[in-house]
């Protein structure tokens, strides 16, 4: 019992979560065997699962929490074994939903599809069964929307959403039966194009998504004759459901908090300065919001804003629009998702940045340069050095996240000049 309560209690630390996710993958292999899928399809679906897990592992700060995935895969085992064990399967699914509410999306979709495919509610009239199926899928969409709206929800990497969404499109789309060899590249290219329109993830997140899609499309190329046969359908949705369960991040490894973060900000504001920067607008990023004041820590380092959703300006320095480089900083992410400057690295030269000041003036800047620099080689002179004209520097974090140091390796610095 202690093992069970331990399993359902505190999320596992990083390595245990990954091991659990791998176990879930192995179990998924057995589930597809029980469903009597052909070996190449089983192997390919396991590859899709592994890609999803990899994507989550790499694109979340704290890695994979595989417990819900493991429970779901076990539920699949029970369900595939026969009706008598359906109760066990339902219990496993319920436990998984309790662990990770996002799993409800996948389970509801699975139930809805099964109802529509005559695998559920067989004794009820056709109308009731179909209505139930549609209602379950609609409920899944509702839960997904609710989770997406609530900021406290799981950090869903866009890449994973793309994989899952495209899976649904592929399973539902019956129209591309011709030219099957075109499907893998089309699916991969489609995912790449789609991700181009989403802020944030670069190739690092997009390529795994495209790869996973291509593998899945390869399976479907083989299976299109039996695309709507029960085992294939259940197997495909099962992969989706278990992959959804990966979306819950594991707890971070315990680390000693950095002393810098505990030092109270020192107001570094020159007394004579009367004007404040009030708000920032970056049309290209669809970003508009108020500006806090940034102070410096006891050791002089510039502190980022307290709130990851708000940017701040270094009030001990230059007022935006006055001569010299004004400094605006913002977090790239919070502990659970993107921060205010998440998409900063996608700015390009000639993009416009506007800062509204407390005297009513709007300082307009044009981006001249966007670069990512290692924190050890932070270009202090280029960022803070004197300039003859009003300029602006936007600073956030970038590069890889060092989980042990709980810090990013790089800074993203945007340089802009007044226009």
């Amino acid at each position: 019992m202690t093992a069970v309560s331990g399993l359902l209690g505190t999320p596992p630390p990083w390595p245990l979560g990954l091991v659990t996710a791998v176990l879930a993958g192995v179990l998924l292999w057995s589930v597809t065997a029980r469903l009597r899928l052909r070996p190449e399809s089983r192997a390919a679906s396991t590859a899709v699962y592994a890609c999803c897990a990899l994507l989550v592992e790499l694109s979340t700060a704290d890695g994979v929490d595989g417990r819900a995935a493991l429970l779901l895969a076990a539920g699949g085992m029970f369900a595939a074994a026969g009706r008598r064990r359906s109760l066990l399967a339902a219990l496993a699914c319920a436990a998984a939903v309790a662990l990770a509410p996002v799993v409800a999306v996948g389970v509801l979709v699975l139930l809805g599809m099964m109802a529509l495919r005559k695998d559920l509610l067989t004794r009820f009239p056709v109308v009731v069964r179909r209505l139930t199926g549609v209602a379950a899928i609609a409920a899944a969409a509702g839960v997904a929307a609710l989770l997406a709206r609530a900021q406290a929800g799981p950090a869903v990497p866009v890449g994973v959403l793309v994989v899952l969404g495209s899976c649904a499109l592929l399973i539902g789309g019956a129209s591309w039966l011709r030219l099957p060899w075109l499907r893998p590249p089309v699916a991969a290219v489609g995912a790449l194009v789609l991700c181009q329109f989403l802020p944030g993830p670069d190739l690092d997140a997009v390529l795994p998504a495209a790869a996973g899609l291509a593998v899945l499309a390869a399976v479907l190329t083989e299976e299109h004759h039996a695309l709507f046969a029960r085992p294939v359908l259940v197997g495909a949705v099962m992969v989706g459901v278990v992959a959804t369960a990966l979306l819950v991040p594991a707890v971070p490894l315990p680390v000693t908090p950095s002393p810098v973060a505990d030092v109270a900000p020192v107001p570094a504001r020159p007394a004579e300065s009367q004007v404040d920067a009030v708000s920032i607008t970056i049309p290209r990023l669809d970003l508009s919001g108020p500006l806090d004041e940034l102070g410096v820590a006891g050791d002089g380092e510039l502190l980022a804003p307290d709130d990851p959703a708000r940017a701040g300006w270094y009030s001990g320095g230059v007022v935006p629009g006055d001569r010299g480089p004004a400094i605006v900083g913002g977090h790239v992410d919070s502990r659970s998702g993107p921060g205010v400057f998440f998409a900063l690295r996608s700015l390009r030269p000639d993009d416009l940045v506007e800062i509204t000041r407390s005297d009513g003036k709007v300082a307009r800047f044009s981006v001249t340069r966007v670069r990512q620099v290692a924190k050890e080689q932070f270009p202090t002179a280029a960022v803070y050095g004197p300039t003859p004209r009003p300029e602006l520097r936007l600073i956030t974090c970038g590069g890889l996240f060092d989980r042990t140091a709980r810090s990013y390796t790089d800074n993203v610095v945007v340089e802009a000049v007044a226009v």
Partner: protein
Amino acid sequence: MPARHLARPAVAPRRRAAAAGSGVLALLLLAVGLALAPAPAAAAAATSMLRLAQLSPDQGDLELTVSSVANPDDTVLIAALGYGELSDYRTVEAGDYVIATRPAGSTEPPMVSKTISVQPGATTTVATVGPRAEGAVTSFTDDLTAPEPTQARVRVINAAPPATQLDVRGPSGEQIAGSLALGAAGPYTTLAPGETRLSVGPAGAPAAELPVTLNANEVSSIVLTSGDGGLKARVVVDAGGPSVVPPGPVHAGFGGAAIEAGPYRAMSSTVLVVLAAAAALMSARFARSR
């Protein structure tokens, strides 16, 4: 077990292998994608800048027209400056320019003109020097390199006729400029910020003590002018920055949307890539053997 698999029409083995092969290819793509570093940063274009210094005491307010030799329609007007004043910098394309001065607001032909060559990325000050009768236009290059963050970088410009040769010394007697000719700019020197005094005078003659206030992390030109009250020093900030420069990088992220670094990343990636690759390879093998 094969007999229990789904009933299906026969599929050409080649097509099956191609499909499985595309899966393997996709995994290779994945590996490449993970190895890819973020896109290189866009390079900044070198901009050239120009400004006017009005160093002639008897010429009144002057304006400056800057016309590109290559494209005469491309003319920039730098407006009205009094004696001892410097304009803001204007951005210009690199190339040759004809510089002409005339009284502010007038449309009469230029009094003095000169052709200068603006280098890419250079910062240039064009100065009108001397009395009206023998007025000339000169130019000097400004060096806006950042000083040490806690220091101020200054140079002295002699705009104080009739003093033709001035010695300028800092608060502790160090020489800032020696034998500075009228209309010339001295070399850049680093001074401590704050209120300080410069000793200025012709070589060998008694020096005047001129107060100046300098800020840290600024590059300034100290313009020496002459008038009824004798020599005056006027500090013109060429380039300004925050007077308190925070050292080091900014820690602005909690990792909630991060790609993880360190040994864990390598380990976990390896495990999952091996799993994905093994499954894809098995898929290909099964497909070929069918």
